[in-house]
């Protein structure tokens, strides 16, 4: 970590981000502007999440980074190495061992605890941005809790497709006050946000916004009384570990229509296999 301040960012910047974080925690779901810095990775790769992580990280923290649920993808590996280098913190792939988890597109399958923080990378913090192009107007709508427009979008979905067709970044109401984008996690993960014991922090680097959900806060997915919110998942068990209740990735295995459904949470899958659970495709793998 020679040549760098602890966790890369200078202390003044971290203080500025922590002030924004405190405000965000005090007003659950409200987007707080912050002076986002240039980071040594491109926008869209997690510049917001990495700045939030840098600001909450202490020397004794244990960091886990996941991208689409996996610990071993480029984005996850490079951010984990970045903090191992600049902060010298311990890193892990085990959800239970981590104190800070930075994530892109997933929430781990394992229930998080009160002593953990989960940091989301957010590309677009404004849940209304596709519906109302004026940021002045969306700020006014948040201020007045005027969210009829979001339901117009849901209405359009039901009218056109017979169901609410949002499969990721499914809008939620936080603490029955602020409409919030949960970042592009699958709708499957939305129920995990509700009354989560861990602190949830959201950083959008390019859009320069931070927001948060304090522990044990009500998070409700928007829906209609006669078209209630429901999660969507592939109707198979995991091919490797046989889990029937985890979110699955579809992997194309050959050019003859072969495919494999596996847990997107690699740590969850590995842990289950270590405990002796085997899926239908797991046997073949072991036999080879």
């Amino acid at each position, binding site marked *: 970590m020679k040549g760098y301040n602890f966790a890369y960012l200078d202390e003044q910047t971290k203080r500025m981000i922590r002030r924004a974080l405190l405000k965000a925690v005090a007003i659950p779901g409200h987007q707080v502007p912050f002076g986002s810095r240039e980071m040594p990775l491109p926008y869209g790769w997690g510049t917001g999440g990495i700045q939030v992580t840098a600001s909450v990280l202490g020397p004794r923290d244990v960091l886990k980074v996941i991208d689409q649920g996996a610990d071993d993808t480029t984005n996850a590996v490079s951010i984990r190495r970045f903090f191992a280098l600049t902060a010298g913190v311990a890193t892990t792939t085990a959800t239970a061992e981590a104190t800070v988890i930075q994530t892109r597109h997933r929430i781990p399958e394992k229930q998080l605890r009160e002593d953990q923080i989960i940091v989301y990378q957010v590309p677009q913090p404004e849940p209304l941005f596709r519906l109302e192009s004026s940021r002045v107007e969306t700020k006014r709508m948040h*201020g*007045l809790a*005027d*969210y*009829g*427009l979001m*339901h*117009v979008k849901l*209405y*359009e979905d*039901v*009218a*056109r497709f017979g169901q609410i067709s949002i499969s990721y970044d499914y809008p939620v109401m936080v603490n029955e006050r602020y409409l919030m984008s949960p970042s592009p996690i699958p709708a499957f993960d939305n129920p995990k946000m509700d009354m989560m014991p861990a602190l949830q922090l959201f950083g959008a680097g390019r859009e320069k916004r931070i927001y948060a959900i304090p522990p044990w806060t009500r998070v409700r997915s928007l*829906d*209609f*009384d*006669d*078209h209630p919110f429901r999660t969507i998942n592939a109707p198979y068990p995991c091919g490797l570990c046989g889990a029937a209740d985890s979110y699955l990735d579809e992997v194309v295995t050959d050019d003859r229509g072969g495919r494999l459904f596996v847990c997107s949470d690699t740590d969850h899958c590995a842990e289950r296999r270590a405990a002796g659970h085997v899926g239908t495709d797991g046997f073949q793998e072991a036999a080879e």
Partner: protein
Amino acid sequence: MTEPTLLSGRGLNLNFGAIPALADVDVDLWPGEMLAIVGESGSGKTTLLNVLSGRVAPDRGIVRYRDPAGQLHDVHAMPAPALRTLHRSDWGFVHQDPRQNLRMSVSAGGNVGERLMARGARHYGDIRGAALDWLAQVEIDAGRIDDLPRTFSGGMLQRLQIARTLVTHPRLVFMDEPTGGLDVSVQARLLDLIRSLVARLRIAVVLVTHDIGVARLLAHRIAVMQRGRIVETGLTDQVLDDPRHPYTQLLVSSVLNT
């Protein structure tokens, strides 16, 4: 008039630089009444409408609205959330250009349902039912409910805007040249529709128009504006049949001669 007024403006003044857009304007509107504000372009009609509806604050003067409970509210002293709530439930605004009000990328049904959803309706079936009912009331075919407004004709758009506005059963609707830009036969049909809907639902309307014919057909009372002042006001037939102010005489005679 034994009933108390629904909306009243007193001593309204507003200057745009050196130009007096409103000068000492007093207006009263009773429940269920249709008041037409007529005058030429630049006479302050639309400014008056914007001030009465709370969208533009006057330099001086006060606008009071009586809510269903009988409580009087100073429209320009109301907190923004309360005014917004008023605008999306008790009040409505019909623009000359329906594109200003409608969401062009949202289906007809979604447009009609938006005010209901903004007010807290969360039952899809009910919202859909209300949208179908209102499309029928404004004579739009039920089969068009999932079509985008951009596939609609000008007259249909205006009728859709009216359905979208009236779906929450407002007590007071502001209309800014609702028939402007439509051809004559479509205008006639629309006027007929507005007249029957307003009478049936007992909605009070402030109607801005430069068309004396529209005012004569729809309005109970009329106020004639010239250079920011109301120069003559009274029952529509009285004012139009026996205009007193020279400017009103000019307006009426110019219509009758064509």
